């Protein structure tokens, strides 16, 4: 460092405490073992979120919510230079982010990284996943093409089925009894103001916790004596690999956005019959299909209520796992939680597959 740079660095350091941060980063390590690969998925999710922020702001320049939303998306896709690319990258990164968050969640679950002292990491992660799903649901409607219109209409029937308060919630989200331009306006506000305002601080909290507690080693690794465990410095070794993963993700995103650019269907027509094969996005397919299957056994309102109840219990049990599987030893409860995870993955995959199979 030249004397001038050193002086500037000292000036900033005195005010922001950069040396402490650098010292912290130098000492931070990441466990190295057979499952280390799964550590990158949180970073990949973060990268894809950043891509969405960037492309989302660009889309915001031309998108006009309300009655003109379809026309503005049509212009972005077919008139603006590389508008289709920005829109495709936005849509594909949203889907890839949902995928990587799910992979991240299940890897955290199976490595039992939710145990003490990482309970808040798990809870904030679950809240981020919930918000990301609402991001997906609200963003899907914005182009207001035939498919997004009918999928949203069907999707909003789920909260409407909640006893007593359901219809009021659904009406509030729709801005009336039907999905219309008012719904787009509301979803737009949700998508670009409310959700980011909730998501960003929560993300900051989540990342701070990761820095504070570091990466958790799986129980099999923790069972080893300290001398047998391998680690690598976070700075710069892990960070470099993280950056390489980001570049690989960028390439996969570029490949998908270019080879399969996001299509735009016909403009919605509320009077037209719903086209065949209307289905929710893939990450909602599993709950959608589970409710559908349950409805086949228990027809009518009973089925709907039972479905929502069962679903709520399942999610609550999943979210609260750190509190009933808290010991670090692989005891009976630890194994039960493991089986719970396997059942959840199997159910998710099976119902998603059945869902896609039955819309063919």
């Amino acid at each position, binding site marked *: 460092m030249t004397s001038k740079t050193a002086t500037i660095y000292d000036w900033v350091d005195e005010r922001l405490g950069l040396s402490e941060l650098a010292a912290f980063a130098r000492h931070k390590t990441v466990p190295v073992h057979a499952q280390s690969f799964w550590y990158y998925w949180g970073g990949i999710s973060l990268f894809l979120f950043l891509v969405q922020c960037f492309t989302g702001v660009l889309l915001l320049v031309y998108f006009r919510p309300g009655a003109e939303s379809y026309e503005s998306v049509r212009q972005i896709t077919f008139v603006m230079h590389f508008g*289709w690319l920005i829109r495709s990258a936005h849509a594909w990164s949203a889907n890839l982010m949902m995928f990587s968050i799910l992979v991240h969640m299940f890897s955290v679950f199976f490595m039992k990284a939710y145990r003490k002292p990482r309970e808040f990491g798990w809870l904030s992660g679950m809240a981020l996943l919930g918000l990301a799903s609402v991001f997906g649901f609200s963003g899907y409607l914005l182009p207001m093409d035939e498919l997004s219109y009918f999928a949203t209409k069907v999707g909003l029937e789920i909260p409407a089925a909640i006893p007593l308060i359901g219809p009021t919630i659904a009406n509030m989200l729709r801005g009336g009894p039907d999905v219309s331009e008012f719904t787009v306006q509301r979803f737009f506000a949700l998508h670009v103001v409310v959700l980011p305002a909730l998501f960003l601080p929560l993300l900051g909290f989540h990342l701070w916790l990761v820095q504070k507690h570091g990466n958790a080693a799986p129980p099999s690794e923790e069972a080893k004596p300290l001398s047998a465990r391998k680690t690598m410095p976070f700075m*710069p070794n892990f960070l470099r*690999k993280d950056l390489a993963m980001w570049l690989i993700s960028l*390439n996969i995103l570029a490949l998908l956005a*270019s080879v399969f*650019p996001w299509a735009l269907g016909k403009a919605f027509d509320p009077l037209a019959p719903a086209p065949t094969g209307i289905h929710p996005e893939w990450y909602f397919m599993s709950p959608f299909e589970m409710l559908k299957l349950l409805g086949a056994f228990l027809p009518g309102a009973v089925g709907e209520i039972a479905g929502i109840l069962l679903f709520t219990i399942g999610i609550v049990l999943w979210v609260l796992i750190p509190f009933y599987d808290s010991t670090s030893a692989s005891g009976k409860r630890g194994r039960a939680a493991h089986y719970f995870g396997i059942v959840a993955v199997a159910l998710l995959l099976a119902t998603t597959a059945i869902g896609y199979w039955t819309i063919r």
Partner: protein
Amino acid sequence: MNYPFWDIPHIGSGWVIGMIAIFHVMISQFAVGGGLYLPMAERKALKMSNAEERADWLKQLASHSKFFLVLTAVFGTVSGVGIWFAIGLTHPEATSTLIHNFVFGWAMEWVFFMVELTTIAVYYYTWDRIDPKLHLKVGWVYAGASIATLVIINGILSFMLTPGDTWIGVAGTGHEASKFWNAFFNPTYWPSLFLRSCVCASLAGIWALITASRIDGDKQPALKTSMVKWSVKWLVPSFVAMPFLMIWYYSMVPASQRALLTLGIDTINSGTFSVVTRMALIIIVTSATIVGVAYFLAYRNPTEFNLSHALSVLLLALMATGAGEYSREMLRKPFVIGRWMYSNGVRVPSVSKVNANGYLAESNWVWNGSPSGYSRGEAIFRGECGSCHTLDGYRPLRQLLAGRDRTNIENFIVMLHENKADSPYRRFMPPMVGTKQDVADLAEFLNAQVNPPAPNSTKAVLTAQK
């Protein structure tokens, strides 16, 4: 139209070439770049003053040369011959033109190819058996022969995009081979050669990373570090030169073809309208970032660099190569040989003759005089559309024409037949050639596919009768 048509449903015959060619290019360009990598690495090792380091490098290179031999001399050779079979069946007219024009070029290619095969076998089997200096010389002979194969095949491949005015002047006269050198050193020859040379160097480094990743970083950290770092450096020339070479190549491509590259800037209309632009984007993003991936994963963490990392870099290279070769093929549209032969094998000067006499009358193999319009339409579909379209798979006509009725389909074909200057389709689709009856027959066949008759009506004849 002198040969039978090879009908491949669902994927189309073009993809048979594509699937073989993309892997072949990955390996054949490795054969060229790796051919240079081996003697250069051996020379570097022989100059090392530390005997232990020298021995480690040479041992590693011997192991890499085994991988190189198996991959290039077995898979590369088999897939190369596979391309010959595939292009002969898929594009017999174009292959025939190339053979008539470049028969001596190909003969030279085969000579160098035989030298390559021989020397790489000698190179591998004589490690530690002959004098190191002689062994190195064998490596240089291999490198020379493999570069020569690139120098030759590049002339033929670039000819197909830009045959040049001189060759076009004699095309069809029977004296095409007299302009061999003009055709060979065509307008895109040099930018294409430099581009491919850079890709060859990159692939040499990328494939070498595969074998280097297998070195145990805990047991031999010094060897792994030096080997990985040296291999990554092979990616640098293309990273630096690629943007300039691409601009050079772009400037030598005819304006009509350049227009194809810009078609997809503001739209995602289906099919060829925008595919070249989209593929070009993949090439740019992947080429620009692959060095970053190799830098972070390999250069800065050489001892921890493992096979999964190496495979990630290789897959990115496959993506860039696949997109590059696909774009190059697509950039020729609507021709298979620029300005001379359309992508469906119809020669440009014979259009008026076919329009006067009828497509089937000018075809020796597809037609036997069946009176059914449907059968004639099917035969015309195979000949004129089948090079690029399938009915229900790749670029599916059932889907692309969906929603049109019989009249509408016929009007569309008439538009392709008239091929007016302002038609957007003429940029990448050949004109539909033939008589009015041919247009009606093709419309009948396609209409039966898009709007199939009700099951209880009279069954149409399903295949061209022999």
